[in-house]
């Protein structure tokens, strides 16, 4: 036993501490330890090189350091006589930064003691190496995500609790394997728990997919990206022609004033209060459900306008606005407008009365005959049920004309708002009001066929809704995970296209999720190729990072500034990472590690391959 210890030490010892300079320690390597591998008891151990670990023994304390650099010095004592070996000419030195120490069996991050000069340094044996890379807490369950890049065969497992109860950031240039990593993480995660009833009930996932990578557009019935279709809802939203799916939202979310005022870029002082009045006023809203009541409402408002001597142009524009808002849901609205245009006229010099031209003569003065004649066209009107968003649009229009008539509303201030109402059409194509909850807990929302503006709005709207819902639950066991691929689309902090208020609202919403979400069991996974574009508040609040290759200097800087878990070696490796490898750092890892992400089970890969030009062109 004694002998064995001496033998092991002679093989594992690599050198001695030469100097200690703060966290940086220099180690002089023994001359015989200059190869890249050492064989030991049938196993193959990696010798020290940049990126590997060394164990420095100070008395009974085992300190673990990571090699950050190495350099050689010529041996000054060496004299080139005839009898030499190549290895004798040089001294090899390592620059090592301290990482942590062994506390009993477990490796712990952080340093309590620094080494002394002449302390002996050793290689980690396989067991110690595994302990350093053992990220699983005692009560956690492991998920295998890949193998160490620098030490093939060393599997990397991450604890489910420490990873998925945290905000995750996945960054990397396009083509560096981001989407694959994202898919792999959730593939293994779902694989492990999808059979559990409790998981289905208590965990909810929303994946925002801007490029349509996470759904199989060719075979949507057998879609098995990440997880089989039977476990997930796929919403392929589209603003093109309304053919896509519609995402269900709760009624009360739709009647949120904040949302509407921001969505319609309402000015704070006048338009927002007006919108508030319009949406909260259910007098008209109640009338939009059936033909009779809606026609009555239109008639009543026109009557009112005539009696208040409103200009004919306003009456016509009221009708035109309605026509635009509900788009042929009332069959002969077009004819009615023409009719009104041709037949309705002013009477008298003072513009104080309308009259109607008819074939039999002119009708006016007597309301008893004037109105039936005026509104006779409405009796033929067919009616198709209105969608919720059309109702809201009508509500705003009615409110506008109602106030115009009753309170002398300053139309100059409000009318720009009415012009923007057209945006509601897009919302109508992708959302529906539905208060029933879905039985599947995984939701994939594809925004590939959605226009740029809706791309910004939809994730926000949906996230806010599901976040608020989760907040209301006050249930400790319920879990919500929001996954946003290409997150710079929604989390960008310098966008010139949008107004300041909108941007603030957007960022505030997500920042709240990231700051406070943890308390309500809400976690965010964001993937992006532009970390520099994303609000630094958000990046720095993430707990775990998967960093793929980053080329752009700004992105690298953003990562350097905001991520405190990175050591120098990992940081320097960022621009040269091969595709499919990433640096995993954060709370769930004791040390930052370079991981080759494992293969996703067949059929579950995201559809994000680069096209093969040469193959397609032959």
């Amino acid at each position, binding site marked *: 036993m004694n002998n064995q210890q001496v033998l092991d030490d002679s093989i594992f010892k690599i050198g001695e501490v030469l100097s200690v300079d703060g966290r940086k320690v220099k180690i002089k390597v023994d001359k015989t330890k*200059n*190869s890249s591998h*050492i064989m030991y008891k049938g196993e193959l151990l990696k010798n020290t090189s940049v990126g590997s670990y060394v164990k420095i023994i100070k008395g009974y304390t085992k300190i673990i350091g990571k090699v950050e650099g190495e350099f050689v010095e010529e041996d000054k004592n060496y004299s080139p006589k005839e009898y030499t070996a190549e290895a004798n000419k040089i001294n090899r030195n390592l620059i090592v930064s301290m990482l942590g120490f062994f506390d009993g069996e477990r490796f712990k991050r952080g340093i309590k003691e620094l080494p002394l000069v002449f302390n002996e340094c050793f290689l980690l044996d396989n067991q110690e190496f595994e302990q350093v890379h053992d990220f699983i807490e005692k009560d956690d369950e492991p998920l295998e995500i890949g193998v160490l890049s620098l030490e093939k065969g060393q599997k990397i497992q991450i604890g489910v609790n420490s990873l998925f109860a945290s905000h995750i950031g996945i960054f990397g240039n396009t083509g560096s394997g981001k989407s694959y990593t994202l898919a792999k993480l959730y593939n293994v995660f779902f694989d492990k728990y999808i059979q559990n009833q409790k998981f289905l009930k208590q965990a909810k996932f929303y994946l925002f997919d801007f490029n349509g990578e996470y759904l199989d557009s060719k075979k949507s019935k057998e879609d098995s990206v990440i997880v089989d279709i039977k476990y997930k809802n796929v919403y392929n939203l589209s603003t093109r022609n309304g053919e896509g799916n519609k995402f269900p939202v709760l009624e009360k979310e739709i009647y949120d004033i904040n949302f509407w005022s921001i969505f319609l870029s309402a000015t704070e002082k006048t338009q927002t209060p007006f919108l508030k009045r319009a949406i909260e006023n259910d007098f008209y809203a109640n009338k939009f459900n059936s033909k009779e009541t809606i026609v009555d409402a239109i008639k009543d408002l026109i009557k009112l306008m005539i009696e208040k001597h409103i200009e004919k142009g306003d009456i016509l524009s009221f009708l035109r606005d309605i026509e635009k808002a509900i788009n042929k849901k009332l069959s002969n609205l077009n004819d009615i407008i023409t009719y009104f245009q041709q037949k309705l006229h002013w009477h008298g010099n003072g513009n104080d009365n309308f009259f109607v031209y008819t074939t039999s003569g002119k009708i006016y003065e007597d309301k008893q005959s004037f109105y039936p004649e005026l509104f006779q066209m409405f009796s033929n009107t067919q009616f198709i049920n209105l969608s919720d968003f059309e109702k809201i649009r009508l509500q705003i229009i009615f409110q506008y004309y109602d106030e115009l008539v009753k309170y002398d509303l300053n139309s100059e201030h409000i009318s720009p708002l009415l012009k923007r109402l057209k945006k509601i059409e897009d919302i109508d194509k992708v959302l529906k009001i539905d208060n029933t909850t879905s039985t599947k807990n995984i939701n994939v929302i594809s925004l590939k066929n959605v226009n740029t503006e809706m791309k910004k709005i939809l994730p926000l709207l949906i996230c806010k809704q599901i976040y608020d819902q989760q907040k209301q639950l006050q249930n400790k066991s319920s879990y919500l995970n929001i996954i946003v691929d290409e997150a710079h689309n929604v989390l960008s902090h310098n966008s010139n296209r949008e107004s300041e208020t909108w941007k603030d609202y957007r960022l505030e919403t997500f920042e709240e999720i990231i700051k406070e979400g943890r308390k309500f069991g809400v976690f965010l996974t964001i993937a992006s190729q532009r970390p520099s574009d994303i609000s630094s508040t958000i990046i720095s609040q993430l707990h775990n990072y998967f960093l793929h290759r980053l080329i752009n200097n700004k992105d690298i800087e953003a990562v350097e500034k905001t991520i405190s878990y990175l050591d120098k070696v990992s940081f320097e490796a960022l621009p040269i990472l091969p595709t499919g490898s990433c640096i995993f750092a954060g709370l769930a890892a004791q040390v930052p590690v370079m991981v080759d992400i494992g293969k996703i089970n067949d059929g579950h890969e995201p559809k994000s391959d680069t096209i093969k030009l040469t193959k397609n062109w032959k």
Partner: protein
Amino acid sequence: MSDFIDEYRLIDRIQDSNINFLFGSGMSAGYLEILGNIEQLLTDLNNDETIENENQRELIRASILNKYFEGVIEKNLNILDYSHLEPEEILSIQWTLESYINFFKTINQLILSRRNKLLSKQVNIFTTNIDIFLERAIEQIGLESNDGFGKGFKPKYDLSNFKKSIFQKSLHFDNSSEIPIFNILKIHGSLTWKSEDKNIYFDSSLQGIQKVQKVKRRSLIDVDTSKDNLTSLKAKLPKRIHESNFSRFLEEYNQLAIVNPTKGKFQQTVLDQKYYDLLRIYANELEKENTLLFVMGFSFADEHIRDLTIRVADSNPTLMIYIFAFDKKSRRRLNCILGLYKDKIKNNNIKIISPNRIKEEDKYKDEFQYTFDQINERVFKKILEKISKPMTKKIFKATLEGFGNE
């Protein structure tokens, strides 16, 4: 056992270690016969007390040795010059030689590709074979080797020759670089050795064999190495034995500087000493740090080598030994003979590599057999391919395309 090159990470191991080979008779089996039970027969014969007549004993010995001579030794002359042979035999010599040549080419490339000046470029090949295939193959492809003989008109065998290395200077820049060199250590002697005045000299024309060949051998017993045992041989003994029929043969045969495949008994003192020296070198080489030993075509029937190997494996945890088993059956035999079943190998550093088993018509069969060719193809060439092929292939294609001939 899917792909053991990856599984055992052979590439990484080869890149960083001292490389040694141990060859057995299986390596030349393409042309020369393998020993069969000759060794056992000779040992049994020495131990047998029941044979009273010394002549009978000598006759059996001569018969067995003759079998060995005809099956293995005599044929070496053909390796030197095969112009007079039947086409079939020529082919079988060429094939065997080709295996050796492939082997050396591949290993040479592997050593060159390491480009590590801290590692030695010497490769040790220990062999119990006495045949001349190794030397012949190296000579044919013009690689550097060390067979223990010095230079000159009468090259003398000296162990110190084995540590010589060779540097080559480039023509244009005078850069000098060590070139890979193969040390050929013939533990059981060689047919190229002739012992004279307590020294061993180089016998380039294999005169020793020719002398034995010329001697008349008569009325020897027919030995079938696959069936016969000592009792059956004794039964074949003729009633009257003339010593003159085989005494000259034995005399000349004993002049050959080879360790006969017997267990433990050596006649010549010079050979004795060389034998122990070579075993010492074998042990020393394996004692070095980060050492790889590939055992090929060797059954470990020789107790000395077996015990020595296990002893070194136990004392050197940085040694790794891979033994190629011809088929599943020989794997079991090796397991047994090396005691791998009983966890006798404390450092876990001896691994037996055997062919995969496949199911065929309800029977399990070996997918292939680890002959010399298969070892080359499936192991060393594959490693070389993984290291260098992708690039050379591309460059090659590019140059060819440039000249418009595919």
